[in-house]
Each structure stands twice: as C-alpha cells, then as structure tokens.
C-alpha cells in the first residue's frame, strides 16, 4: 500500500489537521507521502517532514497552486495519484473542495468524512448528521478519502523525512483568487482546541458574545457558535459548530444558550465532557450534557469567569 496525504495549510503554514490525517493513513498501513502544494510553502514542507510515519514529503511550490484553488489542485493530484493506492485529505473546506475532482477524473468514488479504519478497503463514516454510522467497502483501485480529523489522534513530530520537489505545473485559466477575509484571533483554532465554549441564540446579540471572552481566556478555549447564532448575524460563519460547520471533539465543550438541535449535536457530541448552560430545563442539549446548569446565562457567565 502507498498513501498520499494532501497537507492542509493555514496562512502558508502546515495546519494541525495534517497530523491527524497521517494517523489515519497509519491505520490503513503502508508508505505515507505528504503532498504540500501552494506558493512559498517551504516552511510547511519542513513541518510536514517532522511528522512521524511519513516516508517523504513532496512539495509543489508554484504560484498556480496559491490559495489551493480547486482546478489546479485537482489536476496536480491526478498527475500524482498514479503512484498510490490511497489519496487522503482532511475533511476541511480545502479537502472537500479538491478531492472529489480527483475521484471523478480517476472514475472512482470518494469516501467522505471517514472516522474509522477497519482495513485498507473498509471504513466507517457518519451519515444523516452523525445519527448513523455506515461501514462501507470500496472496491475501487484508487481509494479517495477525506478524513474527519476528530476520529484520529495526531501523530507526533519527531521524524525527519526527506523533502523532494514536484515539478508538475498545471495551467489554470478558469478560476482566480480575488480576496480572503480571514478571522484573526489569538485563540486556538476551533478544530484543534482542547476546550471550546459556544454561544447560541440565547446570547441575544453579537455584543453579548464578549461574555464568553473572559472565560475562553482563562481556559485557553476556542469560541464557537450554533447555526442559529450565525444565521442571526451575531457572529461570523467560521465560528459555526454543527453538521455543516465545524466538527469538534474537545476535552471540554461548554454550550451556552444553545438548545441543542440535532444539527448542532452532530458537530460536538463526541466531546469528552459537555457542559450545558441554558435557562430552559427542557432543552435537548441537557440530554447529551454531562453537567447541566439551568439558569440565566447573563448571571452565570460573569460568576463563572470570576470563579475560574
């Protein structure tokens, strides 16, 4: 078996998700190469080379791969896929954007959001917003898979794999990058944070999300939100936790003013410990919470912050 892992980048650096995808590749077994594609990505390639279990890092460093646009990335993967039995990426917005193109061009299916590996051709994946887990077997010659990173513990970073350049340059006349508005935050990334505190519609407005800041600072937590809070315009979309937002599985998840729609639970129910704070003691969130506190969040949050 030989596996190619497409590295996730975050502002030109290697994203933490990649170490989880390498762990999934390890569970499949075989040689693991990591592809780092983008513009000026040498530093990311060096980080990838340190990941345990990686045989080699392949770097496609060219302006055409800047921002990892789907068309050139798909074309690059098609060029490289011939050397591999499996191509993996995280189920990030980049992986989801690019990998189905590879699958279609190689005339194979893609398995999305895989959270467990049974064998080299049999995998577990969530369906119906995680309300059922399907075991699927692929008889395709090339397995194209996106990985739900919360399903695999990250590999360590004590390796030193060789780095080699990929000279393949593809053309792209169809799509171009215009702009990006990325949220700037000193807090940990939602996907990788050990503690997440999320607000819902019960927060009332965007201004009130500041009540979560102090607690997040004390706990080193990332701040998330329910879809209701995002749709109401309280906070931007990149904070959304749920079926169609981010999937998180921190050690501690604190849901504040979130009723607990199944679409939200789909994004956080694998957290180790869940705390719910809600004024409605019938809210469905309490059915999954390890610790529930019924009460007015505007009184509870300041008290919690002062006592932590």
């Amino acid at each position: 078996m030989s596996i190619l892992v497409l590295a996730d980048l975050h502002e030109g650096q290697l994203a933490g998700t990649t170490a989880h995808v390498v762990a999934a590749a390890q569970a499949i077994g075989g040689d693991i190469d990591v592809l780092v594609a983008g513009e000026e990505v040498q530093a990311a390639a060096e980080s990838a080379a340190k990941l345990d279990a990686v045989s080699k890092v392949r770097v496609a460093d060219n302006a055409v791969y800047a921002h990892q646009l789907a068309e050139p990335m798909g074309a690059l993967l098609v060029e490289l896929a011939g050397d591999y039995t499996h191509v993996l990426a995280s189920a990030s917005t980049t992986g989801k954007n690019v990998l189905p193109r590879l699958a279609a061009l190689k005339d194979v299916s893609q398995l999305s959001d895989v959270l467990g590996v049974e064998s080299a051709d049999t995998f577990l994946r969530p369906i119906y917003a995680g309300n059922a887990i399907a075991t699927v077997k692929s008889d395709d010659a090339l397995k194209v898979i996106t990985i739900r990173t919360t399903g695999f513990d990250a590999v360590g970073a004590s390796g030193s794999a060789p780095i080699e350049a990929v000279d393949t340059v593809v053309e792209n006349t169809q799509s171009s990058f215009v702009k990006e508005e990325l949220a700037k935050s000193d807090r940990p990334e939602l996907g990788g944070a050990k503690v997440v505190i999320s607000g819902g519609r019960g927060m009332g407005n965007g201004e009130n999300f500041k009540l979560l800041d102090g607690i997040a600072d004390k706990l080193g937590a990332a701040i998330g939100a329910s879809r209701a809070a995002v749709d109401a315009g309280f906070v931007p979309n990149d904070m959304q936790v749920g079926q169609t937002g981010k999937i998180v599985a921190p050690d501690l998840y604190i849901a504040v003013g979130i009723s607990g729609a199944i679409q939200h639970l789909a994004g956080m129910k694998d957290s180790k410990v869940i705390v719910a704070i809600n004024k409605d003691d019938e809210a469905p969130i309490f059915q999954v919470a390890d610790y529930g506190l019924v009460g007015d969040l505007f009184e509870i949050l300041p008290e919690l912050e002062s006592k932590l």
Partner: protein
Amino acid sequence: MKILVAVKRVIDYNVKIRVKADHSDVDLTNVKMAMNPFCEIAVEEAVRLKEKGVATEVVAVTVGPKTAQEQLRTALALGADRAVHIETDERAESLAVAKLLAKVVEEEQPGLVILGKQAIDTDNNQTGQMLAALTGLPQGTFASEVAVDGDKVHVTREIDGGLQTIALTLPAIVTTDLRLNEPRYAKLPDIMKAKKKPLDVKTPADYGVEVASKVSLLKVESPAERKGGVKVASVDELIDKLKNEAKVL
C-alpha cells in the same frame, strides 16, 4: 443565460432517523421526505437570478425514484420553468449522479449550474465538485454570495478560516452554503401552475450511464448513545465537578 439546478429527495431534516433492525440501512418506510435544504437554496438562487434578469430560463433536474417527481414539482412551484427527471430505483451515488448531470449539461448547455453543497442523508459533499471535474468547468463551492458579472461569476465561499472570494469564467458550477439566501415558500396558485409545467422523464440508460458503484454498504449502526448526566445547582458545584470528577480543569 440558462441555469440548471439539481435537486435531491431526502428525508425531511426534522425527522429523527432510525436504523433498521438488521443494520442494513436507515429505515425510510413511512418517513416524511422533502427537498434537501441545500437544494432549496440552489433553486431559490436560480429563481432570483431569473427575477433579476440575469437568467432567462431555470431547468430543474433530479436523479431518483418516481416519487422524486414531488421535489421537481416543488422546484417548478418555486419558479423553475421546466424539469428533467432521471428515473432510477438504484442507490445512485455522487459519481453516478455527477456523470448523469454532466450529460444533461452537455445537452442543455447552461451558463451556470447550481447545486446544494451536500445532501443531508449521505452528507457526502461531492457531486458539484465531481460534475465540475467531469465537465471541465470551474467550481465555486460552499457559496454565500454569487454575483454574475459579464462573462464571469464572483463566488464568495465559506471556508474554514472565514470567507474567500474567487472569480470563475462562465459556464461554471456553484454549490450553495446555508447563508446564500433564505428560500421562499411555494404559494398555492404556483403549486397548481407547477402541475402543468413540462417535466421530461429519462433513464440512466438514455444517457449511457451505469449507476452501480464499487462502494458497498456493509452495515449501518446507531452511534454510541451519549447519556445525559446530572444537573448541578450552582456555578460552584459545576467548577467542583469539572475539577474533581471530570478532571478537565
């Protein structure tokens, strides 16, 4: 410009699903079905582009069993002009659907194809990207804003870190995210009118596409149930439990 919009019949998003006792699949008997919510957003966007004068015709297409015509009629009631039903009782996976849609694109030559980013049953998030690859057209996935400008379309995409705007040459493929628009409800007179709008029925064989996939579903199980825990009476008790019982602080 013609817009092709793809829709899928799925379990209604409010229904709590049950796994069959023999673990062969999810039980869909006597369950309320509806148009996939992301597809509703796709239809809405296409209809709005027609209302703005950007599009001249909206064609809705689906791949699925005979009952999927209900969802095509919904699309027609919402403002699509005509519909194409590719009828199959087989479980059509993303790749087969993308191949069929590629044939429809070849036939209809739309300027824009709009699809939902994912269906809420299989949660695959693949078909639009696969269609783009098969037709050789550029893609703007997870769109929260679509602006047609001459021979290009600007698509603002919801990505992990925030928003990204890209420009695509037309024709192009767009997949919708939740915040692209808020779909309207069909009015009764429009539902009546929709019954008279043209709806072509085809089969995968008409397009020479094989629906069978090389991925087999071995079993379906319910996820490990998460048990509700305890209610605590105060912030102090909560902090105590988190420190001494759960040991996460």
